[in-house]
């Protein structure tokens, strides 16, 4: 399955505004998207509560996975959001 590994750069981690932007972008896609910490269980990337509960901090590595039409573009977009400072 196509995936991207990204280091989260935002000072607030994947919380607050970065988390909202990330989830909103994922939610627009018609395909399934998951998010996991480097060695953790994947969660639904369209669920803000699940993403917040992962508690991703600045400097942590996350893995974003999606399969299906447009998955490459979507993964690039999500990776860019997660890697934005």
């Amino acid at each position, binding site marked *: 399955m196509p995936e991207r590994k990204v280091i989260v750069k935002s000072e607030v981690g994947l919380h607050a505004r970065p*988390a*909202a932007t990330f989830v909103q972008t994922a*939610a627009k896609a018609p395909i399934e998207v998951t998010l996991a910490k480097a060695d953790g269980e994947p969660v*639904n990337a369209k669920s*803000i509560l699940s993403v917040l*509960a992962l*508690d991703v901090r600045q400097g942590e590595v996350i893995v974003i996975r999606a399969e299906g039409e447009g998955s490459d573009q979507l993964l690039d977009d999500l990776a860019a959001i997660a890697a934005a400072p």
Partner: protein
Amino acid sequence: MEALIGAGVSPGVGFGPARRLLGSVPPPPPDARHDGDAVAARHVALAALEHVAADLAARGAIAGGEISAVLNAEALMARDPALADKVTDLIDEGLAPALAVHRAFGAYRDMLAAAGGYLGARVADLDDIRDRAVALLMGLPQPGVPLRAVEPYVLIARDLAPADTAVLTPDVVAAFVTEEGGPTSHTAILARALGVPAVVACLGATEVPDGTPLLVDGASGIVRLAPPADVVAEAGKRSLERAAALRRARGPGMTKDGHKVPLLANVGGPADLQAAMAYGAEGVGLLRTEFLFLDRRSAPSVDEQERAYREILGAFPGGQVVVRTLDAGADKPLAFLPHAEQPNPALGVRGLRVFHDAPEVLTDQLTALARARQGTEGRLKVMAPMIATGAEAAWFAGMCSAAGLPDAGAMIEIPAAALRAREIAAHAGFLSIGTNDLAQYLFAADRQVGALAGLLSPWQPALLDLVASAAGTGRPTGVCGEAAADPALACVLVGLGITSLSMTAPALPAVRAALAGHTVRQCRAAAAAARAATTPSEAQTAARRHLPDLADLGL
């Protein structure tokens, strides 16, 4: 145009949609089941969540900025697909929609609460969304004080508790209207502290439908429902004029003809100092010292107290700081003071009475005050609460003198002390009238009982009679109750012979402007007219006739 009438307790005009404050949403019954049609139940539950989400998103879109981001995040939570899956699962198990939503939120709530920090703080957001959805599903009104609003709203409640309002700011609340409460109720005090107009004891207020545009006049007590645009525009214009007039009023308090009336702040602890200085207080007219004593096992040391007093004295170099000695008793017991159960705490051993048999705590406090006074420019004065007789005033003055404090005064809160103020003044350098307690004892009406609020109006002619009696001793006599914070009443008090006024700091500009607009002669005429009246509202109307500038100031 319909209108409701209550008691105006915080002057100014506010306009906005009505928002009723309701208690928390009760959890759905733990055995609530749907009627067997899971598909319909699922549809109802998800529609409620979507409704909440759409409402949040719509408000966010209008608000813009930081508020928009927060509301959008909340909308995202309400639309969360994982949450929706949980709700669906629970409904498939037979749970009723409201219960399923409540439980589904519960799982995330625990997770966030356990994480603490930023995530822990999201629990409140989650609870808010949950309560909105559950209230919708149970047919209950929407809960809680709305903390963010696109336009300031008029908060309507039976009465307000500190917990309801601790988080409110004037950019969110245009005015308060409560069905219960009096001039010394929490709502009134809070509204004046925030500088927000307020009307209390307003019958029918809680029947007003949510969203009704309300125009609230916190001076006259009139609340207009759905007023025409020109009336609102006129009120808005007056409100701006008022703000401008208040900004113009600066400097020490004095009447139009130059009669000086020091305007002082009531201070409950170091945290209040900044506001006191910002609003131009000339000093502290009532320093409540309980903050040093509450919630501890042993009394604070002399050193600790000295430091605290020094900090406050230092804030007003050259200005007077009037310290009230510890006011404890059966109503607010302290671990290190002797106390016994008393059938009527307000009429029991409280205030100065606590120290008659065990003066050690008072001696320490006076020692600390005497030390703090050394080497500071502030004029430190000390007064005792709940003095009833000249003998008590003499005893307190003796304690002060022994500690090295020359300027001892007495609070006048007991009718006997007001009636025989001369006997108190023989042993006191100054007097300070606490109108809140004085009204309570004069009318035998508990301040905590909302139903008695009418008796406790500071405009009661009988109360004004007692103030006049206490103000006639020739000693400097201030007022430090809520009465001083009412601009019209402040003029009346000066007319009665009061020489300084102390109030919650945000009330200072309006009082300063009201005094600056009238001569002592006008104040005296207003006082005489008020005392000639037979009811509080007549007294208010009669007094205002002699104070023409108040209307121009929008007060």
